[in-house]
């Protein structure tokens, strides 16, 4: 390898390093499949092979496009369209060759995110007996409980308000998928936050 070639490779490497670092900063926080390791480790471990996508019986796992920055080709879910059904045998976790998805034995091990209720738009908080998210929740009475109280300024009617326990919610998104309110959806899953890099 001549000096000129070495220089070319070196310059290319430096440019690529800077470019890639910028791209990584632009990576999105999204809902990952069950068992995903911390976001920084996930970007390193995920080989972008797509086996989890093929293993998902509900075709809920999608693959990131260019707008994912360095997360291109990594799996994610848009739970409003297709939530995670928390299959008993965890086919996506079993398919992962690199342990980017790992460590799931039971439903409560999952930590994809946490559901958050928009109390201004939730019709249950207005006094309508909706309870759709509560009934749909695979961890009913654990992750979502009903807080029943008298409607303020109303002696006859009660409010059946869904309340989320952030400790118990696994972020599967079935509540967001089933929510009857649209524009905006009254319950949304907030993806888990990335940990510190070191």
């Amino acid at each position, binding site marked *: 390898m001549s000096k000129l070639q070495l220089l070319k490779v070196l310059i290319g490497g430096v440019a*690529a390093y800077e470019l890639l670092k910028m791209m990584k900063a632009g990576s999105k926080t999204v809902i990952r499949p069950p068992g995903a390791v911390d976001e920084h480790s996930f970007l390193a471990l995920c080989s972008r092979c797509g086996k989890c996508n093929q293993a998902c019986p509900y075709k809920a796992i999608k693959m990131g*496009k260019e707008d994912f920055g360095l997360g291109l*080709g990594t799996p994610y879910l848009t739970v409003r369209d297709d939530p995670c059904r928390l299959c008993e045998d965890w086919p996506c976790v079993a398919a992962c060759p690199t342990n980017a998805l790992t460590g799931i034995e039971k439903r409560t091990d999952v930590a994809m995110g946490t559901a958050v209720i928009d109390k201004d738009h939730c019709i249950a908080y207005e006094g309508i007996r909706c309870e759709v998210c509560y009934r749909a929740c695979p961890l009913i009475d654990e992750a979502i409980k009903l807080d029943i109280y008298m409607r303020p300024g109303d002696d006859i009617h009660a409010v059946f308000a869904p309340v989320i326990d952030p400790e118990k919610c696994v972020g599967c998104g079935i509540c967001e998928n089933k929510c009857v309110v649209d524009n905006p959806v009254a319950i949304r899953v907030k993806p888990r936050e990335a940990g510190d890099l070191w």
Partner: protein
Amino acid sequence: MVKKWFLLRKSVQLFILLLFLSPLILADVAGANFFYGSLTSSEILGIRLSDPLGTLQVTLAAKYINWAYIGSASIIFFIYLVISGRVFCSWVCPVNTLLECTDLIRKKFKRLPDIHFDKNTKIYLAGLMLVLSFLISVPVFEIISPIGHTMRNLLFTWGIGVSILLAIVLFDVFISKRGWCRYFCPVGGFYAAIGRSGRFRVKMDNDRCVQCQQCKHVCFAEPSILDPSIQGKETFVSSGDCSLCGACVDACAHNALQIGLKPIRNTDYSKDKEISLDQK
């Protein structure tokens, strides 16, 4: 003349494509098929197979050793180590299947430029990808790989990385004949680096060779790799760049070339005799 190797290679390429597409056709849930996955990692009858370069990148990026994953890549690694590294390129790689079409365009328009680069660039790039993966903690080439993008477009997400594929096709058509595969693809570079240890090689019979250079005209890899054999310096084409596509064997009108098993110990003494005769 029947292009034996050409037909065999095209059949294998088609078989590989159908194998990867089979989960979409044969099973409701792709993962329940006897085979599923992509070239980065797949599973056949429960046996995991992974791309060695991808595995190296992930291992360096994550700084974490997963023996099961490395094991699944070793199977593929040793298969190519024993046969010949770049057999992947001409017999398996879907990008090569696509880029072979650029050769057809080039046959029609013969005045297109053909810039040559150093064929070892791809090996340096493979090394660069590994270093960058380690520094940035992301398997860098898996994000830009046209092979990965081709698999994704076929299997999961339409429209991803099409610009990269387009750029490579344009580059091969207008700037450099099969330039991506010959000079720049890091996967090809990785396999070229282990290519010399392959047991299957192109064998040259110098008694039959008439130096017509037809083999060099059709060579997929860098044509100059055939020179030592044409000049009678080596019986087996030794360069790691040879992808055993068989085009030279098909093109030779004098049956001077064949693909054969290279003995582990060199038992071909014909060259030694020639030397001793010259000395007399």
